[in-house]
Every structure is written in C-alpha cells, then in structure tokens.
C-alpha cells in the first residue's frame, strides 16, 4: 500500500551499478514495513482502526467556563491594556467587526465606481478580468 503512494525510482534505474546501495536500502525498508502490517494483524481489528470517541477530555477550566482575559486595567492606569480590552469587548459584543463605512454608503459608492469603469478606457486590470472570464 505504502509503496504505491510513494513516488519510487524505476526498476531500470535501480539496476544500475551506482544505485546498488539505494536498492539495498529500499529493499530493507520494504521488508520492515511488511513486518509492521502482519505483526499485530490478529490483535488490531478494523473497529479499532476507525474508532472515534464522542468524549473530548480537557484538563483546563478555561475551555469549560468562559472567563475574562486575566489582564485588566481600569480608569487609564495602563492605556495599552485598555485598548486591548476594548478591542476584545467589541469583538465579543457584535460578533463582527465594527464598520468604518456603513453598508448603504458602500453600496452607493460601488454603483458610482461601476459607472466610471464602463466609460473609462480599458486598463490593464480590466483586460486581466476579461481573460479570466
């Protein structure tokens, strides 16, 4: 099985004089891997190979309870940490990033861009797009 997956040298090459050592090594490897498959074949069942568990063990509390970040600063004691805290809380509150440009404004400007592109002479970006299509 393993030998079919791996890219291997053609036999004609291996028969050449200077490939003698490589040939010996490959033969040894092949014999070793054959031994592994047969060694425990009677003990390892197919079920054991494909078994999966529904239980995930976790040694730490931090994955069980949703704790706060352990580094906190209040009332401007450490502005660097407060910036990080603000970013964290904005992420958790909305579930998405805060927008600098609202959806409506973006839609309007995109329409404007579309109009401009059609009238303008073909640039190198337009040509690339056409080729892809």
């Amino acid at each position, binding site marked *: 099985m393993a030998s079919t997956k791996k890219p291997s040298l053609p036999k004609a090459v291996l028969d050449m004089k200077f490939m003698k050592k490589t040939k010996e090594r490959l033969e040894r490897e092949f014999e070793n891997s054959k031994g592994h498959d047969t060694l425990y074949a009677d003990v390892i069942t197919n079920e054991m190979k494909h078994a999966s568990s529904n239980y995930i063990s976790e040694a730490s509390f931090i994955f*069980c309870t949703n704790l706060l*970040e*352990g580094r906190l600063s209040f*009332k401007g004691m450490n502005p660097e940490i407060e910036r990080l805290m603000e970013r964290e809380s904005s992420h958790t509150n909305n579930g998405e990033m805060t927008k600098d440009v609202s959806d409506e404004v973006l839609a309007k400007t995109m329409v404007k861009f579309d109009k401009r592109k059609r009238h303008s002479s073909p640039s190198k970006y337009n040509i690339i797009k056409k080729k892809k299509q």
Partner: protein
Amino acid sequence: MKVKVGDVVLPGDYCDEIASVGAKSKVLIGPGLKKEIDHVFVTKAGVLKKRNPSTFWVDSYQKRYIPCRGENAIGIVHQKAGDIYRVDIGGSCTASLSYLSFEGATKKNRPEVQIGDVIYAKILVASKDMEPELVCVDSHGKKGCLGVLSDGFVFKCSLNLIRKILSPSCPLLDSLKNEWPFELAAGMNGRIWIKANTLRETIAVGNAILGAEYLSDDEIKTMCNNIASILTGHIS
C-alpha cells in the same frame, strides 16, 4: 454512587447524564472527570457543573496548581540558564521560558528580564512528564497582554478565587472599576498581581479581591461600596 449535575460529588461517583449526552453528540469533559469504558467517573471532590450544550466539569477547591496548556500564569524568574529562563509558576517543577519567545527578540537582541522579575505568560506545553514551557507572545508574534509586570504587588490565593473574579457574572470588578485607577493581572495558577497609584489603593484592591472569596454577589457589592467610601474618606 450515581450523581446528577449540581450535586456535591466524590471521586468514584459516576454520572449517567453525561453518558446519555455522549451517546448522541460530542461532549467536553473538563477537569475532575474521566471517561472509562462504561461510565464517566468523577476523580475530584467538588460540585459537578454543566454548561450548555454539552460541557461538564467538577468545580473543586484547590490551591495546588497543575499547569495546563493554554492558561495564563504569573511566574517569578528564578534562574537564567543559557538560552532559557527558569520560572516558578507554583507547579510541581519550574517552567522554562525561552528568551526568543518575547516580542521582537532575536539571538542578538535579548529581552531585558532579570532574576526576580514577575512575568505574565501563557503555558504552551504542559505534560505529566516534562516541565511546562511558557511563551510571552501570541501566535502572531505580538506580545498582547503578556510580558514582564513591573512594579505592583503579587499575592497568592486559591485557584477558585481566580475563576470567580474572572467570571463575567462576578460583580467585583464591575463595582471596583469606576472607583479608582488600577491594573490587575490574574494568573490561573492562583497568583494575582495588582498595581494602583498609591499604597492605600493597592491594599484596598487586594483586600477586596481576597474578601470576595466566600461572599455572595450582593455581599460583594456592599463590601466594594464600603471599601470605596473608606478610601475616599481617608483621602479627603
């Protein structure tokens, strides 16, 4: 003995509820629980807790820290040994912290860490048989909130208290945060580092945290109000 969620449990007890959930979907079993062939057994004394949809763990009182991967801990640098620092995080053996795992550190440009410094670091590797390994950067190579903690005051407490003050439902930090400026780092290893502008304020924060261990939410609020009023009374 068979137990339910919310019960006080002892090692050797088992819970069929976890097994029934586990038969249908994935279950996360946290500290204090162990899956054996036919049951999920309790291995620590405490209260069996559940968080929806399928997370179970035993909330036990503990002061001895057992390092776990992914947790943030406060450590004290004990030794510089070649290219690593040995850091005491309160576990069974000291943790190692490579001098390259700081933001912007290279082989030529070593971070400025002295013996005796207090460090807030994340545990990268924790296993039964090896010493834990710490890092002071995240996966993007940024230091974030990790690194050396300068000045301030460190004290120890139980591991439960750390989880209590860091849980989002705890009113302690909410009632303290508008009173006076302070900074806090809580390690999951039962050490808290605090820093405020004056000695009196630092002691007030420390006492508020230590006093909150066995109080209910309402009692914590009144305690914080008391501390704040005493503090303002003294200053004026």
